């Protein structure tokens, strides 16, 4: 019954009033936690994500150590109250998979060769979920890593595109994710355009894929600017404080 709701009008207007290439409202703040080495709070539409970075520190147990470089351990975790029906606390198959693909994406940009035998822990807590939490988590992780002073080649950023009601659109919302035709989360290194994360579920033609991919990359660049502003904002605030 619900699949018959019109996700997008023929004029390209979506359920929440956005056009096909509009992104939901994003708010990023760096350095929000006291104990963490670096942290970031991020709101993306109805998503609320908090990320803490610890490290580089010694990797334990020792058999996980790599003698040539640091390992990157991202952990994606959803709060029990972040979804409609309470989620049982602890890792499930979905969060283990997301943790893995995010770890691998971050590993590509972090200068891991500078820290043999160490680990960089990235703790991603989803406090409120509404479609696109992995992109929100990875984007927040990028800012938290900078806040922690971890040397990186670039600030990783993610954004999803998808297909709803036969049209390719940017940044799927909740109903669009549930009842849409396809979802394509993409993470890139914005300086070089290298793809760090790519997943797709649903159904797209090759043309549609190309269109959706380009749109997702475009979204990444928009989000990247917001990331940079959040980081600049933090350091400008510190600079102002020092000058006083």
């Amino acid at each position, binding site marked *: 019954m619900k699949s018959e709701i019109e996700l997008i009008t023929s004029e390209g207007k979506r359920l929440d009033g956005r056009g096909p290439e509009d992104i939901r409202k994003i708010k990023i703040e760096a350095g929000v*936690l*006291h*104990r*963490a080495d670096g942290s970031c709070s991020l709101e993306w539409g*109805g998503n*609320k994500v*908090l*990320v*803490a970075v*610890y490290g580089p*520190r010694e990797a334990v147990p020792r058999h996980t150590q790599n003698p040539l470089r640091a390992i990157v351990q991202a*952990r994606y*975790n959803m*709060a*029990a*109250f*972040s*979804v*409609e*029906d*309470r989620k049982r*606390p*602890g*890792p499930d198959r979905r969060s283990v998979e997301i943790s893995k693909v995010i770890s691998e994406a971050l590993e590509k940009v972090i200068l891991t060769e500078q820290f043999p035998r160490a680990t960089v*822990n990235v*703790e991603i*807590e989803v*406090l*409120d*979920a*509404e479609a696109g939490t992995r992109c929100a988590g990875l984007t927040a992780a990028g800012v938290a890593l900078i806040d922690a002073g971890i040397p990186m080649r670039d600030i990783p950023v993610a954004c999803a595109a998808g297909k709803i009601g036969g049209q390719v659109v940017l940044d799927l919302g909740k109903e669009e994710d549930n009842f849409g035709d396809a979802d394509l989360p993409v993470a890139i290194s914005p300086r070089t355009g290298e793809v760090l994360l790519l997943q797709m579920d649903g159904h797209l033609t090759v043309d549609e894929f190309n269109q959706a991919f380009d749109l997702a990359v475009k979204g990444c660049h928009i989000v990247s600017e917001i990331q940079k502003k959040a980081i600049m904002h933090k350091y400008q605030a510190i600079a102002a404080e020092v000058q006083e």
Partner: protein
Amino acid sequence: MTIVPIIKRDYITNLAEQGKRMDGRIFDQYRKIEIQTKVVNKAEGSARVKIGNTQVLVGIKMGLGEPFPDTPNMGVLSTAAELVPLASPDFESGPPREDAIELARVVDRGVRESKVVDVEKLVITPGELVWLVFIDIHVLDYDGNLFDAASLGALAALSTTIVPAKRFEEQLPEGHKKEDFPLPMSEPPISCTAVKINDFVLFDACFDEEVIADARLTVATDHNGDIRAMQKGLSGSFTKEEIQKVIKGALDNGKEIRKTLKEATSS
């Protein structure tokens, strides 16, 4: 004990002998408390509590289910705490350990024994169908005194909880009210925790003070000034005079914290 805590212990006790604390507070003074409610859209009720640098997020989820066989006329309360590794370099992921379980149980007892939630009003069909209330405590930043932050967070989140009757419409029996309604609550007791370091009793310990503390005492007091729950922790001991000092401090601080809680939940 490694060397760093020994140095810190010297520093903190030297200060205490001069009547001072690391952050400039006096012994029975709390750090600044901030309470923000309705912070999670998906939760039926939620609150983010800051005590100094310590931050806790509590979310309430509700559902329908069977009551326990021995309490067919009561809704079900369930409390869980996660000390997620986000909050401290020393927390690890995995199933809840001792610390998380003690925290959840102390908060649970505070909510359950004080009857702050009127569970008898959460019954739909006695012995068959009742509302389940899940209190989930998510520690975000650990700088000491999780007990007070988590209890306060649970109370604030519960006070703003709306029972989602409309969403469960289809599962509710014929003739039962299907409009959302606020969770039935009564006046809550407030928990205050003090630690003992040598012979000094300090309220609302920060992380560095908590690490070296010999003993800990939590006292929950209600709006009439009566004691509603107590819990002693750690391997040190208290004298009777010290316990009385903690009770007095809990009453005085409890009054202020109750005011803060009321302001945060009344809007």
